């Protein structure tokens, strides 16, 4: 090798300016694309808020506490819908949490053969993908006729309790709760299962080692260790339940007047919007946007709370 050849090898070459241009351009592009998330999020609040402005001016906070939804007199209050949203999602959670977490425990501990476990957990995951409109169709034609005699029996025995005071006849709050439960089960099961699986094997072995029974170690060691994930999953499910539209709209009956009974037709914010958007007048449209804003704020709070809980309760391993 001659000396001249070496010097050309080490000769410093600068990047062509076009390279730098492309580099910077690409960086700015992806920054802009990432910014789209923030733009959309803020845009949702601005668009929904500005369309709701008229109703906010007309009804103020009364909107939330009044149950008069009267398109003829053009006065609107969303209490029925807000109550319905909270009621259906909380009742659905009460049913879905024990079932979902129980199933998750059953799927992570070695109660059953690994192959069967695999099949069941894959199925649960695929079921989370079923569109809600299909579940709504199923609820109308299969679930509601099936549960009606059961609800009827409850009404006959416990009809003196206001919650069960009406005769169940077709669409109503309770069938909506059942279909919501079915929608939440895969979410809660999948997330609880994942967080139980992530608990270090050492904890389990230590619990067994000091003589804990299987269920003592599950209830006192494993579940507490996985609680951040489980609660996060429950909160996510709550957010989903409150925003769920199609299945609920198809089975809840869409009654705008208030009724304390769970067997009577009811309403949720999402189903109110889905139902009345098509033929709404000007102020009614604004009132629907106001309702959408309320829903947006409730789900926003639930989701932020969920993220906070997950971070707060997360036990640090490793």
């Amino acid at each position, binding site marked *: 090798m001659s000396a001249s050849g070496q010097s050309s090898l080490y000769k410093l070459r600068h990047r062509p300016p076009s390279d730098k241009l492309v580099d910077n351009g690409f960086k700015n592009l992806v920054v802009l694309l990432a910014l789209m998330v923030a733009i959309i999020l803020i845009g949702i609040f601005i668009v929904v808020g500005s369309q709701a402005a008229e109703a906010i001016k007309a009804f103020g906070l009364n909107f939330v506490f009044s149950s008069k939804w009267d398109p003829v007199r053009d006065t609107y209050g969303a209490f029925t819908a807000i109550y319905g949203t909270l009621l259906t999602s909380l009742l659905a959670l009460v049913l879905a949490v024990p079932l979902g977490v129980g199933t998750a425990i059953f799927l992570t501990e070695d109660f059953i053969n690994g192959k069967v476990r695999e099949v069941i957990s894959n199925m649960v995951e695929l079921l989370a993908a079923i569109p809600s409109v299909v579940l709504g169709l199923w609820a109308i034609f299969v679930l509601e006729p099936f549960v009606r005699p059961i609800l009827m029996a409850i009404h006959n025995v416990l009809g003196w309790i206001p919650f069960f005071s009406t005769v169940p006849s077709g669409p109503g709050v309770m069938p909506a709760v059942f279909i919501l439960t079915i929608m939440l089960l895969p979410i809660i099961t999948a997330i609880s299962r994942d967080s139980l699986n992530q608990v270090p094997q050492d904890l389990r072995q230590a619990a067994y080692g000091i003589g804990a029974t299987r269920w003592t170690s599950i209830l006192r060691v494993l579940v507490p260790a996985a609680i951040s994930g489980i609660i996060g999953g429950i909160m996510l499910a709550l957010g989903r339940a409150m925003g769920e539209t199609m299945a609920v709209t198809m089975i809840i009956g869409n009654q705008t007047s208030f009724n304390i009974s769970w067997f009577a037709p009811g309403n949720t914010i999402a189903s109110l919007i889905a139902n009345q*958007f098509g033929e709404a007048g000007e102020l009614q449209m604004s009132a629907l946007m106001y309702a959408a804003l309320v*829903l947006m704020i409730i789900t926003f709070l639930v989701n932020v709370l969920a993220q906070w809980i997950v971070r707060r309760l997360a036990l640090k391993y490793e």
Partner: protein
Amino acid sequence: MTSSSFKAKGDLLFKPGLLRNQGNRLMTSIAAAFSVIAIIPLIAVILFVLIKGFAFLRPAMFFELPPVPGQEMGGGIGNAFLGTFIVTGLSCLFAIPVGVGGGIYLAEYGGENKFSEFIRFGTNVLAGVPSIIAGVFIYGLIVSSRILFGSTFSAVAGGLALSVLMLPTIIKTTDEGLKLVPQELRWGALGVGASKFVTTIKVVVPSAIAPIATGVVLGIARSAGETAPLIFTAFFSPYWPDGLLEPMATMSVMIFNYAIMPYEAQVQLAWAASFVLVIMILAMNLLARWISSFAQR
């Protein structure tokens, strides 16, 4: 102290009659019962949709328009089948570039800085936004303002509403997929003189293509079944698709509209459309699993 002395006392034998062992069995049976109760409705949904939907399905349905309300029988889901592909395709046009680009920023440029933490938080919040709100948002932004060449309900508006829902899934999976790429690959590429752009596009993204594709397919599967964002953006039409700025039928909205109709012909179409939709979505989920199995090597 021999082992036989333990055996003689029976101290170390399992005693099924102990309270704690009985409690154990009780809890196990409760958990088993819960699992069964949880799984039965899930299986019932799948079985009913597959059996009932398949019973009403005819191959000709894919080429026919839905019947006029009250018409005896017949008719098909052709326009809605086509419409689902068009509207979902439009949503991909917007959501994939934005989602993958945003994910690239988060993983490759932003790292852990304040702005990208904010975007990650925003992505999580956006993932929790109810689907109907996405519809209301696009309605207010595009449909009622007639901003798109004076059109009101349109396939484009529907696609945009769906893309709002797809976006968080794609960003998250891209971000997480890129983070799994070994740092040595980036150093290697930069070390031989590649620019950051070339490193990202030619080295990092291709090696994370499996998780990214998984996220995209899952996002498409989710948006193809969505109804709430479409009922007041893409709306519905009983005719064949007639341009992207016109209302367009989709299978999900068709199921919603026809499920509550008092006519048997429409209800049968709703079941048939459910069958097609569920098969499509399950197939996409299986595809996503298949793709992600490549990522785990």
